[in-house]
């Protein structure tokens, strides 16, 4: 019994069908708990007032935007090396979710930036690299749309994802040389104890886990949709050729 058995679409459909209801309920529960806790049951910050509460959306969305691209990279590599169709379709399914997360992070940041920095947008390295990430997602999605043959499309988008990852990383560090930053550095790290007060930290953690389960739910749902689309197209082609 190995993980690769779930590369079989039939097994994947059976397993994901069983997981999906739990994942849906879990993500809804976590997000409701985290957001209601964060928005209504935490104190206002002494400097930022209630605007600080936007972190409960902004931080998880930004985290997911980057990690979804990483997940697409891993799925693309699995497709290129082992040629499992479910993997290619999972990468395709994840991309629209990733671009949405990037937009959520950009917009919530802008809404917070107006009262705090006095501007919706600044050419800060972190903000700019998110805009760059957005453009990379756009190109990736456009390529999926443009190529007609499914396997060629999976190949080309996987190669683009690989090359794009290298250049997105390069851009991420090149923009640091280009302008001074306004955005704060990383606060949450796995190795150090959090400098954020517990009253914010715990609802934030709940929200982050909620966003992760939401992503798992959506990506399973969309991968199943793509598998079914492909099956129905195969059935239609068989009917037409008869």
């Amino acid at each position, binding site marked *: 019994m190995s993980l690769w058995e779930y590369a079989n679409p039939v097994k994947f459909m059976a397993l994901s069908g069983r997981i999906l209801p739990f994942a849906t309920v879990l993500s809804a529960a976590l997000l409701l708990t985290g957001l209601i806790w964060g928005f209504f049951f935490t104190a206002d910050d002494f400097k930022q007032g209630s605007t600080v509460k936007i972190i409960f959306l902004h931080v998880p969305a930004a985290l997911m935007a980057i990690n979804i691209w990483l997940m697409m990279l891993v799925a693309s590599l699995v497709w290129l090396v082992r040629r499992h169709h479910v993997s290619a379709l999972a990468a395709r399914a994840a991309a629209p979710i990733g671009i949405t997360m990037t937009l959520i992070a950009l917009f919530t940041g802008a809404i917070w930036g107006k009262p705090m920095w006095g501007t919706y947008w600044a050419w800060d390295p972190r903000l700019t690299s998110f805009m760059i990430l957005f453009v990379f997602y756009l*190109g990736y999605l*456009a390529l999926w749309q443009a190529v007609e043959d499914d396997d060629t499309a999976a190949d080309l988008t996987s*190669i683009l994802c690989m*090359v794009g990852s290298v*250049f997105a990383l390069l851009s991420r560090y090149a923009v640091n*040389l280009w302008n001074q930053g306004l955005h704060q550095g990383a606060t949450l790290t796995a190795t150090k104890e959090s400098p954020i007060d517990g009253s914010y930290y715990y609802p934030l953690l709940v929200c982050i886990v909620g966003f992760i389960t939401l992503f798992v739910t959506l990506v399973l749902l969309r991968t199943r949709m793509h598998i079914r689309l492909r099956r129905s197209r195969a059935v239609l082609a068989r009917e037409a050729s008869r």
Partner: protein
Amino acid sequence: MLALCRRDILLAVRSGGGFGLALAFFLILVMFVPFGVGPDRAVLARIAPGILWIGALLACLLSLDRVFQLDAEDGTLEALATSPIPLTGLVSAKAAAHWITTGLPLTLASAPLGYLLGLPAEGYIWLVTSLAVGTVSLSFIGTFGAAITVGIKRGGLLLSLLVLPLYIPTLILGAQVVTRAVSGQNPVASLALLGGLTLLTLALIPIAAAMALRANLR
């Protein structure tokens, strides 16, 4: 490989279009800037490094869809792919030919165009050097984009959408070399980073482009 490179250069020069087109585009783009922002010398001198770099980058983009398109249409590409030259070599030869027919003329043309925009005197040598180094990576990255979109009908617009984001690090570092030189800082560090980036693309892009070609030819 050399023969292939020579053939591509001759084709570009003799068929017209590719060779002069990019230069004309570059000239017109630079001419448009004073129309857009006004003829004030101080303003033009300040934005000249960025304008020249963006202009060269966009001019480079123009002839990219021709890199593989014509050969794919008449079947030459399949013949080349089955020849003893490895696909990475084919891609490198194509990219080198593209650089010689666009990157090199653009680099040489950038100095007089810089004068038109009132680029300060200390900027010229760095402008030409940074473009000479940077356009190589532009040609290679562009060839990768062309390899991806070779099977797509009317892929020109998609090609720009795929390639332009990949140009971001080159543009940032290249323009920074000139900006630093003009403002009296030491541009060598930026130039070294730009050179490193070009070497990285030279080493890795042919492999990725060959993979893309193989997927398209299957």
